[in-house]
């Protein structure tokens, strides 16, 4: 009898191995999901978006007209911050860069490999909300730069299966709106999912 038990271990082990494979295969486990990098300046999105009510395009001005979303120039920062919170430690850093006429060397968080062509504007113009890919970015740093500060984090795996899934199943406007914290109107709910091309040469060339 004990012998029998011994042998039942084998199929059990196999099943376990299979499960592990599938898990690593389909979860973002193998991607840089959750990547979080310390930044030269403890930038906080929340106040800008929520308090100041700035639009994403104010800083990422090219997001709707270029493959490259662009990033605020130091001058743009100083545009407000010469007055606003000018005394805060972090702003002082920014001011220092402006002084030296140097760009801020931000560390890249969301990154697709170089052999992937990702045109931001096609997605933005199709109505895909920023949050659909970047998560609750508008709340980042709500705690402020000082106490338990959380830098920008990659919430989605951004791996190929993740992209393809949306391209094939289609982007659901209602879902996107919900993520963006906008109110979900019945029209949105009614909208059919926006499907996209999934030919390799759409992203890889």
């Amino acid at each position, binding site marked *: 009898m004990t012998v029998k038990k011994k042998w039942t271990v084998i199929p059990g082990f196999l099943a376990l191995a299979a499960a592990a494979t599938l898990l690593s*295969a389909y979860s*973002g486990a193998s*991607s840089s999901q959750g990547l979080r990098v310390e930044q030269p300046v403890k930038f906080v999105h929340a106040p800008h978006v929520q308090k100041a009510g700035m639009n994403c395009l104010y800083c990422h001005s090219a997001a709707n007209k270029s493959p490259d979303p662009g990033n605020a120039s130091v001058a743009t920062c100083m545009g407000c911050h010469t007055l606003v919170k000018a005394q805060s430690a972090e702003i002082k850093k920014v001011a220092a860069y402006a002084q030296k006429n140097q760009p801020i060397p931000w560390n890249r968080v969301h990154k697709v490999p170089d052999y992937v062509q990702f045109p931001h504007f096609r997605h933005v113009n199709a109505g895909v909300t920023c949050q659909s890919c970047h998560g609750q970015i508008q709340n980042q740093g709500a705690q402020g730069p000082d106490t338990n500060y959380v830098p920008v984090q990659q919430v989605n795996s951004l*791996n190929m299966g993740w992209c393809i899934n949306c391209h094939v199943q289609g982007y659901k406007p209602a879902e996107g709106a919900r993520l963006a914290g906008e109110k979900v109107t019945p029209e949105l709910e009614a909208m059919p999912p926006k499907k996209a091309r999934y030919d390799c040469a759409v992203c890889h060339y």
Partner: protein
Amino acid sequence: MASVAHPVREGIRGPNIASADVQLPAVRDYEQVDRDIIATLGFTKKWFLGLSVAVLAMLIGASSWIYQIYWGLGQAGYEPPVMWGNYIITFVFWVGIGHAGTLISAILYLFRAGFRTSIYRAAEAMTVFAVMTAGLFPIIHIGRPWKFFWLIPYPNWRLLWPNFKSPLVWDVFAISTYLTISTTFLFIGLIPDIAVLRDKETNPMRKRILSILSLGWRNSDREWRHFAKAYLFLAAFSTPLVLSVHSVVSFDFAMALTPGWHASIFPPYFVAGAIFSGFAMVWTIAIPMRKWFKLEHYITLNHLDATAKVVLFTSLVVGSAYLIEFFIAWYSSVRAEQEFFWNRVFGQWWWAAWTLLLCNMAMPMSLWSQKLRRNPTWLFILSLFINLGMWFERFVIVVPSLSHEFEPWQWGHYTVSWVDMSFLVGSFGWFFMWFLLFVKQLPVMAIAELKEIVAPRMKHGHGHGHDHHHAGGHE
């Protein structure tokens, strides 16, 4: 009967015994079998020397692989349009060698060929190691070896699967299946023999290991009954497998439209060539082994004679395939084909083509003479030439075809580099390393099966009555 106590001296002009009927007159009883075979396992200085040479060669190959991965394939001799070279040639070469083993153990088993009994274990081991060697080369050959696993179908987050229409994916399936099956076949055959070693072993540590390896084999009638059936079905599966594997390898070429590749004769032609080269390698291994391990009265001249007949036959098959290729090229009236084949024998590659014709077509004709068939020295020399010839056969298939394709502007040449060569050396090192390790750990002959054709003790009735209809049979 006493005359057979010591090895028999068989005359050069021995009786022409039918291959099915080859027997072991010089082997008296079961105990002798155990004694003689187990005697081969003792370590010797010569063996250590041979092993260290093999390991050294293997290391040369390994280090050049690291070097090549760092720099890129440019360090090999590739010269576009010759995009395949030494690695694919050597791959096909080793796969070919890997065919004799399973052929002997499976096909000849079904055909009840008596002479297989004493050579099949060595041949099977050779097969496994040859395929292990061959299997490395596709990986060595590709540009990004670290991505090789993309050829294997497994669920992945890219949601991508391999292209099952590609002959290379067929290869992956064929080669891995073949490796698995021939390894299994080898091991199953080994189980009773390991049991023998186990029961003779005195060293408790080794005894423990051996009893694990023997899976607790007890030689009970039930075990034998299922064993026999399983062995039969394995043989039945392996038989078409052997034929399929090299056919699939030949598809790598036949499925392409390259002149000199795009030929429907390739599968049978490759299989025959594989068996041909396989048997040659069996000689290369068995003849010295027979001498050093004093197994002359297990691998008798009759055995060699029988194998020589197989080699002669396959040589004729391969030879006619060569000639048919030329005929078809002429008959097709496709100019590209015709020009290519002309170029193959009279153009820039004449030396390679003639080497292969000499080694594979001309020299084996010597085996029409029984005198030479029963001359181990000659067979050994011949085997080396056949191995060379078969390497060049693959060279002639791969390189000249690619260098002389449809587009004249892109006609080119090919020369191997030192990196290519070190891989070739390395592959032999790798192969012999495994084989040498094998011969000193496990019996190079199937003890249990030898006992089948050795007469059992009888109280009354005929002494050494061999029941021929059952020779080698398990039922």
